[in-house]
């Protein structure tokens, strides 16, 4: 390290102080921003960002020393013992991967692991999908659901005129950040009806009819997040007709295939019905929940096009979106997922483990409902049973949520959403107590 460096710094500062003699006379000394001597920073104007509303719940939960605390924030599956779960098929796939001497860590292609892409498209569209047979589907590996949505957004911003995306109210909070940052402004459509705690079907249809021709429409393929409210098959058909009549472009967010009902095919029904009519759509898939691969960031973006020629061109343009974002996706999760999807036995075992997770969640729903009824908690709690997937939209407001957090150490998002996956037979009574106290407006126990 050069011994003249401190001298150099002093000389530079002195020079600026000399230059700043005018301001010095007025009694102001402005230190050189990069002087690094207890000086102002060029980053001085940057504010502290608040914690992410969803992921911040876990941050807050971790800080809480109370033994009674329950984390119902982020949608990550927990066992009955409250522990994270790595699926057996995942462990097996990883062991195979490690033992496979033909594997290396070379860059994947920009669009990711080809075998994964192929199998992922088949999973959502069905092995007999006409669209796949006709080569009309282009699939790229993505960084879980978020990454797939972001790449899709940037693609649309570049190639779909001046797109606007209509999203349900409410929707996953991150949707409202991904799309605008990706270049696609967001507009709302009615979805959740707080009165029925179900779907505002007519409101949704009316809003879609009123939306412009060609607008992009975000649809949760199954297990709507945060409400758990899904359209029925008939309602999906009505939605499809309106969207097609307005030449709108569906963008499916499919984060829970297999996790909602326990059946991969059932949960894919809405997507498949849209693709069956020959129309185009985008599909973002995530394997975070249904394969428990949260941290590996594995998902896919598929764009179903009218023709193979278009699909091929779209594929080439998706590469131009991906390359300046992260060059190529991480291999590990893709190789695990491809292994499971591509091996008959692993696939079969996976469906069993998937159903077990879905069933445990359904049983939590029943237990919570029964416990609230037993407590005589005022209100109609049947929505806990009717809603589907990982989350329940309790109907509690932010003040009530904050009460539950403060007094009962229940960690959840302010919109009243709870992750059923974070509950267990042991913790349900505590949650029921908290809800009961909240609804009755009682002072809590500290």
């Amino acid at each position, binding site marked *: 390290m050069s011994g003249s460096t401190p001298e150099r710094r002093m000389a530079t500062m002195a020079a600026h102080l000399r230059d700043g003699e005018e301001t010095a006379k007025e009694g102001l000394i402005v230190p050189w921003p990069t002087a690094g001597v207890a000086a102002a920073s060029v980053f001085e104007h940057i504010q502290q960002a608040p914690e992410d509303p969803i992921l911040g719940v876990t941050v807050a939960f971790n800080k809480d020393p109370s033994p009674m605390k329950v984390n119902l924030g982020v949608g990550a599956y927990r066992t009955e013992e409250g522990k994270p779960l790595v699926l057996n098929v995942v462990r097996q796939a990883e062991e195979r991967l490690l033992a496979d001497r033909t594997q290396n860590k070379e860059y994947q292609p920009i669009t990711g692991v080809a075998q994964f892409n192929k199998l992922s498209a088949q999973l959502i569209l069905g092995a007999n999908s006409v669209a796949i047979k006709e080569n009309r589907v282009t699939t790229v590996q993505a960084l879980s659901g978020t990454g797939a949505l972001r790449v899709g957004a940037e693609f649309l911003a570049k190639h779909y005129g001046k797109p606007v995306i209509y999203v349900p109210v409410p929707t996953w909070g991150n949707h409202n950040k991904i799309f605008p940052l990706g270049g696609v402004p967001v507009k709302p459509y009615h979805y959740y009806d707080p009165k029925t705690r179900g779907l505002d079907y007519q409101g949704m249809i009316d809003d879609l009819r009123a939306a412009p*021709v060609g607008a992009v429409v975000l649809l949760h393929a199954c297990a709507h997040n945060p409400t758990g409210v899904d359209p029925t098959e008939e309602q999906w058909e009505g939605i499809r007709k309106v969207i097609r009549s307005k030449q709108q472009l569906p963008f499916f967010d499919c984060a829970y295939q297999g996790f909602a009902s326990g059946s991969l095919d059932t949960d894919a029904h809405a997507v498949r019905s849209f693709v069956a009519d020959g129309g185009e759509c985008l599909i973002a898939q995530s394997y975070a929940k249904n394969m428990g691969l949260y941290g590996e960031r594995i998902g896919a973006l598929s764009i179903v096009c009218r023709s193979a020629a278009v699909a091929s061109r779209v594929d080439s343009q998706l590469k131009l979106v991906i390359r300046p974002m992260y060059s190529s996706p*991480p291999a590990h999760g893709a190789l695990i997922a491809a292994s499971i999807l591509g091996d008959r036995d692993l696939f079969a075992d996976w469906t069993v483990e998937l159903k077990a997770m879905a069933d445990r969640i359904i049983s939590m729903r029943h237990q919570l409902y029964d416990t609230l009824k037993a407590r005589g908690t005022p209100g109609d709690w049947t929505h806990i049973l009717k809603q589907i997937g990982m989350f329940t939209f309790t109907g509690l407001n932010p003040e009530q949520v904050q009460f539950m957090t403060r007094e009962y150490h229940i960690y959840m998002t302010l919109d009243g959403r709870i992750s059923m996956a974070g509950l267990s037979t042991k913790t349900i009574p505590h949650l029921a107590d908290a809800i009961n106290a909240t609804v009755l407006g009682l002072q809590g126990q500290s």
Partner: protein
Amino acid sequence: MAAMMASTAATTAALGCVASGQEVGRQVCTTQKMYNGLRVATAFPGQKKIEESAFASIKIRSKAIVTMAVATDVSRFEGVSMAPADPILGVSEAFKRDNSDMKLNLGVGAYRTEELQPYVLEVVKKAEKKMLEAGENKEYLPIEGLAAFNKATAELLLGADNPVIKQQRVATVQGLSGTGSLRLGAAFIQRYFPGVKVLISSPTWGNHKNILNDAGVPWSEYRYFDPKTVGLDFEGMIADIKDAPNGSIILLHGCAHNPTGIDPTPEQWEKIADVCQEKDHMPFFDVAYQGFASGSLDDDASSVRRFVARGIELFVAQSYSKNLGLYAERIGAINVVVSSPEVATKVKSQLKRLARPMYSNPPVHGARIVANVVGDPTMFDEWRAEMQAMAGRIKTVRQRLYDELSTKDKSSKDWSFVLKQIGMFSFTGLNKAQSDNMTDKWHVYMTKDGRISLAGLNLAKCAFLADAIIDSFYNVQ
């Protein structure tokens, strides 16, 4: 099928067409119309007569002929054109398609063994085995990534005893290798230094421009490569950096400049730092080869540490693709060195805000590998040894190539730049036509800017490569 026909008819009725009563026979007419700024393409094959519609008043922008399809609409993505292949990654694709016996892939910068095979470091295999046995879970990482990784990577870059680390003045966020880290940094610059330009070297890694463009950050170039000397145009570089408006951002390669392999000397680095301080510029270091260039982690980080020691606030993007061979795992970091811990906390919080709508949180696998390797003294030493071996093989190959070129080339051309350049790449000075000759005639695959990856070369093929270079240099203009 009925539903599809019905919806096509509905579409036709809703959208109208060119003009009322116009015959549309076998020749399909595609009209593009503007609706609220959205282009919607429709085709009406087989329609004998098109009714006038409520939308007939909308101006028709253009027509295109589309091949006859069954009664379906034309894609709304019809106007999407075929993108050109990535200039760097496209090289490997072309190489794979070549059936010639004697071919050489000197395109992408991925290390190859002397047998020209991909290389997974032994220490990486060890780490993965350890991880599998530990049976760790696959929960989401925090948005900023694995804490153990972030700590290790900042210390690796700056030195564990660096005052800026001790004073907690470094904001580190795990990123998707070098590209992802650069993109986060660029997104941060776009938001918090709007309008500030980033100066990039001429030439630089091709993807730098794409990253800045997609992040919406303006850029311009500073002179760097001097084709006359096949070395650094230092005066041009200094002049251009001085010329830039105060407070610009200067993208610098920490070591092993890509694509030229030409690095400033320590004295030149000092001068660059002087100018940056005079002009209040903010350096943005791209460090993709720490340890890989010279074989020494500390030596390769000296340029960054030099600037940090002067108290300059700066960005550093790191990658573990090359030095730990973790190309496919996408593991790197964006570091921002600032003047106080309070500012570092704020900067980190805002980097997180940019990462969340891009991919939510980063992948865990590569981060754990790095944390394991760096955190275990034995593995760390083994890593150092493997890295030195990789860097050593490249130096050996450079020497052999230089020897072959000097022997075979009867003219007095000075090929010593092959030895002076450092890292994975060599800028041969061949132009596009000459590079094309390398590929077309000699089946040597390289990028069109004259860059070859020494990592893809072995001793056995040095003579062959020398022949190709000499032929291309002298016989092609």
